[in-house]
C-alpha cells in the first residue's frame, strides 16, 4: 500500500508539474482600432457647358466660370462644413461627333457654398481643399478655354471628370 501511494504521488507530479509556473512578469496594453464613415457626397449636374454659337474665323472660345452663363454647373451635397478636396483633369479632349476631329479643352473651375455664380472663387491647384457649406452644399461652375485653330466644323462632345474626397 505504501508503494502504491508513493507511485500515485509520483504520477501526479509528472502530470501537474509542467506548465504551472507562477509569478512571471507580464505586461498588457490596449491599442485602439478606429474608422470613420462619412456620408457620401452626391454630385448632381445642374447644367452642361454651353459654348454658344461660334463665329467663322474665331480662334478661341473662353468660358469664364466665375461669370459666363454658359458655364456648366455641378451641385455637391454632403456633410455640412466638411473639408473636401477636389481633383480634376484640367485638360481633356472633345471628340467630333461622326469622327474626323479632336480639340483640346482646358477646364477652369469656380466654386461657392451659395448658388450664386458671382460669389464663386476660382478653384486652382493651391486652393483645392475646400469646405462644404453649412447646408451641406457646394456649387461648382465649369468653364474653360478651347482653341479652334484648324478645327473641322461640326459638333464636339467630351466629358469632364471630377473627384471629391472628404479630408
Amino acid at each position, binding site marked *: 500500500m505504501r508503494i502504491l501511494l508513493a507511485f500515485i504521488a509520483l504520477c501526479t507530479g509528472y*502530470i501537474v508539474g509542467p506548465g504551472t*509556473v507562477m509569478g512571471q512578469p507580464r505586461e*498588457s496594453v490596449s491599442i*485602439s*482600432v478606429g474608422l470613420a464613415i462619412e456620408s457620401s457626397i452626391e454630385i448632381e449636374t445642374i447644367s452642361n457647358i454651353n459654348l454658344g454659337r461660334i463665329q467663322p474665323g474665331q480662334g478661341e472660345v473662353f468660358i469664364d466660370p466665375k461669370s459666363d452663363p454658359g458655364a456648366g454647373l455641378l451641385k455637391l451635397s454632403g456633410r455640412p462644413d466638411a473639408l473636401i478636396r477636389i481633383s480634376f483633369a484640367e485638360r481633356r479632349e472633345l471628340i467630333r461627333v461622326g469622327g474626323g476631329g479632336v480639340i483640346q479643352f482646358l477646364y477652369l473651375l469656380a466654386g461657392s457654398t451659395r448658388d450664386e455664380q458671382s460669389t464663386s472663387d476660382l478653384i486652382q491647384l493651391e486652393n483645392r481643399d475646400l469646405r462644404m457649406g453649412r447646408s451641406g452644399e457646394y456649387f461648382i461652375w465649369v468653364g474653360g478655354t478651347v482653341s479652334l485653330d484648324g478645327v473641322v466644323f461640326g459638333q464636339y462632345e467630351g466629358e469632364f471628370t471630377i473627384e471629391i474626397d472628404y479630408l
Partner: protein
Amino acid sequence: MKHYLFVVSCLSLVVSSTLVQAQEIPFGSYYTGAPISLFTIRDLDFGTIVAGDIKERTLGSGDEAVLELEGIPYLDVIVTITAPDYVYLDGDDLCVLPACRIPLTLNYAYTNNLELTDQIGSAILFATSTVRFPIQRRVTGPPMPPPDPFLGSVTYPSAAAYIYIYGSLTSSISSSAGDYQNTITVTVEYF
C-alpha cells in the same frame, strides 16, 4: 492484482505525456523580477471612408499598428492578442446590425532581429492570436550556453522587438456615418 492494474495505468499516463511534448525549460520562470515592457507606438487607424468601401492597412504601409516589446534578449516571450471581430459605431458593442458594426480582419507580424521601428524586411508573420518567440532572434545552430547567474543588484540586458497589427475593414452600403471604434489587447510574458 488491483494494485498492478493501477501501476500500469499510471505508467501509460507518464509515457503518453513524454511522447507528445518535447522537453522545454521555461527559463522565464527563473526571472520573476526581470523587467519586461510593452507599449504602443502607433494605434490602428483606418482613416475615413464612404459606406460600402473596403479599407486596408498593410504591413509596411506606415499605417499599421506597432507595439514595442522590451525585455531580456535571450528569453522567449509569449504574446497573446485578444482582437475583436468588429468595430462598432461610437464603440457600442451591443450592436448586432450591419448599420452599426463593421467586420474587422486582422493579421500579425513581429520583428526580433534588432530592427528599428518600421523596418519590416525580415518580419515574421503569424496568423494565430498567440505566438512565442525570443526577444532577440537566435542564430542558427546549437543554442549558446546559458548566461552566468545574476547575483545581487543586477542590470538585465535589454533588447527591443516589435509587434505589428494590420488588416482590413469591410463596410457595407448600409453602414451609418460616424466613428467606429474598438480595442485590441496585447499581453506579453516570459516563457
